[in-house]
């Protein structure tokens, strides 16, 4: 009964958020477009092929297209929302409800992703029209693994960003710190350069951080091309690392959240 009640609560929450997000279709389309960076980088990488990269033109195309898609479904904006809710005092009623406030944000993100889906499909279709040589789809099992990896990547990113959002309990300006987190998310994740292009030392270092699992690993799975032999991921290793990061970040978030709520005095109190 308890589990059932909880499931229904989430279903309601999700459908409310979806209705809300669907109102903002136009803005979300623009958001989707603001993820063009992988395509800009693709143009550069295809014009200046690196020797020994192991990625030819169409493979580069599929990699960066996949990186774009992964980014679309792993973007997290919980820090802004949470900061606004804290400053405006909306958090106080949320804390009183019998639902962890973070679930509200998870539902909002997932609803927004669902709204993005048609635009992303349109962009994928346009891409293959412009680069017919790159047209290839991953095998169904590979696609399934890719989708799973995207989901886990979203979870890791959401946990990371929520950790920063929790700092709102102490300081009202957590978005400034989010800007810092954005830098490795951009440069170490594989969004602007495939990890195979990194010198081996740097690639190994990057793989010790959560960032390559946010973009590069899911993107390599989705691209359908064979995973690179050296300096890259294996399917099992990649998923293990993702599980490990979630196992580290989840308790950390729970601890920080509890400490934060204890610290929270509501705005103006």
């Amino acid at each position, binding site marked *: 009964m308890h589990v059932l009640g909880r499931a229904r609560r989430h279903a309601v929450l999700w459908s409310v958020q979806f209705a809300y997000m669907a109102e*903002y279709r*136009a*803005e979300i389309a*623009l*958001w989707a*477009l*603001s*993820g*063009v*960076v992988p395509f*800009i*980088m693709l*143009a*550069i990488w*295809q*014009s*200046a*092929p*690196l*020797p*020994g990269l192991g990625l030819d033109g169409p493979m580069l195309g599929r990699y960066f297209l996949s990186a774009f898609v992964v980014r679309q479904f792993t973007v997290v904006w919980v820090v802004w929302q949470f900061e606004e809710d804290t400053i405006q005092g909306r958090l106080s009623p949320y804390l009183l409800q019998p639902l962890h406030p973070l679930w509200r944000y998870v539902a909002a993100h997932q609803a927004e992703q669902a709204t993005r889906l048609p635009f992303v499909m349109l962009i994928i279709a346009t891409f293959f029209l412009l680069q017919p040589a790159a047209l290839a789809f991953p095998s169904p099992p590979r696609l399934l693994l890719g989708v799973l990896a995207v989901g886990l990547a979203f979870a890791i990113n959401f946990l990371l960003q929520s950790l920063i959002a929790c700092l709102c309990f102490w*300081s009202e*300006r957590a978005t*400034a*710190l989010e*800007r*810092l987190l*954005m*830098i*490795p998310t*951009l*440069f170490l994740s594989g969004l*602007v*350069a495939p990890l195979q*292009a*990194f*010198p081996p030392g740097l690639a190994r270092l990057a793989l010790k951080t959560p960032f390559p699992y946010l973009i590069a690993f899911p993107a390599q799975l989705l691209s359908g091309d064979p995973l690179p032999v050296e300096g890259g991921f294996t399917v099992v290793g990649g998923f293990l690392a993702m599980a490990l990061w979630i196992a580290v970040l989840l308790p950390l978030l729970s601890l920080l959240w509890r400490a934060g709520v204890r610290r929270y005095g509501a705005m103006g109190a």
Partner: protein
Amino acid sequence: MVVWLLAPLRDLRRHLVSLRRFWGTSLASQLEYQFNAFIELLAMVGNLAGSLLVLWLFDRQGVPLGGWSWAGALVVLGAYTVLTGFTSCLLQPNLSRIVTHVQEGTLDFVLLKPIDSQFWLSLRTVSAAGVPEMVLGVVLMVGAALQERGSLNPAAVLLMAAMLMAAALTLYALWFVLATTSIWFVKTWNATEVLRAVLTAGRYPVAAFPPALRTLFTLVLPVAFLTTVPAEALLERATAPWIGGSVAVACGALAISRAFWQLALRFYTSASS
């Protein structure tokens, strides 16, 4: 035409006095947030390091980006850094507020002020956050140009400064036109995010892109005029058509932004009406 374009300059002194007051008060209020300035500085260093990393990935394999040497590409990155600094100094703090003014109805108050509304909206505040970035960008440009050419010709430096000014005006006009569309669509600050994302292409010489994109970045979105032309001016590679083109684009964009604002105001029906 010229009189109309330079309308704010008619009573120049009054505008300059206002400007000093505007910027004095906004800088004073920013001194309250020193922690933000520190983060801003860290973000600047991190972003530059990331951009250098990408350039280095090509350079270490000996692959020139669009025929540009490492030092040449650094000059372009320097120009990009200067313009990002300019964006956080003036464009971001002012123009992102236009949307809020429209949403909350405070644009009415702006329009009632005895001062040119485009002037007020574009220059009301200034943020010190972008200054280090602009300085760093200039240092990077000059340093890399010295490495590339051995010495610097003062005329080239002057030309580079002029081209950067033209680039800044073009960038301003682009942002302003996009922000102005909020009169019709209200929620358009996402559109400036799209602009910002596309402009990251300016981190690299325009020759590094395939021909179709090169045309797009020259004729439709003037990315080439923003960073590549100032860099070429400093490296004494700029040709007359590009220099003339850069000035023409800046003047044209400015005129369009002014005309577009007047047009938008004719459609503005104020909040709640």
